[in-house]
């Protein structure tokens, strides 16, 4: 089982996509927070792509929710995607109700579209 790593990439035109590999919990929340904060400070819309994560816990969800509020407050688009993700990741999103309330998109293209549209969802 690999150590959890959070990465980010800038996709055209000006969307920050945050990706994950390995397992993520309280130990990797600082990594995630740094990436999210950097994008929001740069005023770049954010897509959080959980598809590569093998495991996430509530501390990761907490960081995502917190960043979403901060993005909304600054008028930035923010979206979450899970495509063929690990079953445990889908399960946590389902049990917490975040799959529908966020919402969690099934494709990165749909998430990028939402993020680009801005906080009101366009």
């Amino acid at each position, binding site marked *: 089982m690999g*150590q959890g790593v959070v990465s980010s990439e800038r996709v055209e035109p000006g969307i920050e996509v945050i990706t994950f590999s390995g397992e993520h*919990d309280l130990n990797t929340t600082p990594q995630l927070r740094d990436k999210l904060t950097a994008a929001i400070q740069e005023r770049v819309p954010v897509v959080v792509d959980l598809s590569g994560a093998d495991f996430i816990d509530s*501390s990761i*969800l907490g960081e995502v*929710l917190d960043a979403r509020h901060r993005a909304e407050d600054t008028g930035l688009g923010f979206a979450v995607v899970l495509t063929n993700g690990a079953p*445990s990741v889908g399960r*946590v999103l389902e*049990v917490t109700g975040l799959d529908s309330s966020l919402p969690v998109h099934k494709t990165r293209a749909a998430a990028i579209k939402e993020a680009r549209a801005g906080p009101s969802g366009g």
Partner: protein
Amino acid sequence: MNARGLSLTVAARPENLAVIRQALAGYAEAMGFDPDAVADLKTIVTEASMNVVVHAYPDDAAGPLEVSARPHEEGIEIAVRDHGSGFKPPAEPEDPGLRLGLPLIATLSDQFEIRGGSEGTEVRMIVRPSVNGDAAEEAGEAIDPEEAQGTVMSIAAGTFVRPVLARVISALAARADFSIDRLSDSILIGDAVSAHDVSDFQDAMVGIEILDGDGRLEVRIGPLVEGGSDRIMRGLELPGGASLRQLASDIAVEHSPSEGADEPSEFLLITIDR
């Protein structure tokens, strides 16, 4: 501890959550849990352990975080304990993650209770699916609430040792930045210990303490009966002709006085460098 149980003690730090999660996942897999049930169990044990890391001790202290598991008629019973000042989920936690943790445990576990007192807090959970488990007696072990170092495990000899040990060693070796080769050497050593004759372990419990850091793992195995260390070393002829002495960076035998016993207990110390 009980006839088919597992107990694990680590310092209450974020980096140890993965170790706990992997140990319990290995145990549940060996108990025949299906992958979805293992995934739920990993979430439950991570959330309960995270509460200890966040709430149990002052910010600058990492006291012990104890996790035990044993078979239950409806699945596995897991207990997560601390020796802190009490479980204090704030009424309105600032971190939204903390608002999600307890509902996750409650939803994914079959039963869930929190007992608190001046000497710490225990969260006890039962996770399905059912397996055929024997009733087992409790026997608490004294833990120094001031000190918590490394990973201390006690596993009933038999089926569970190998899956639990392999996952814990992998998690610790990954954390210590071991190369794939050294990681695989470490797992070979763990497998060999797992396969060793139970009669060399006192009370048929495989006790293992692993200290990690500075690019090395220090594995302390015991208490063993007298001569157990020699037999483990001789017995560890590994595939390809490698022996424990070739794989390990250092090996030592330690004799420590043991309570209520005439003779000192023996421990085998294996150091594996990155």
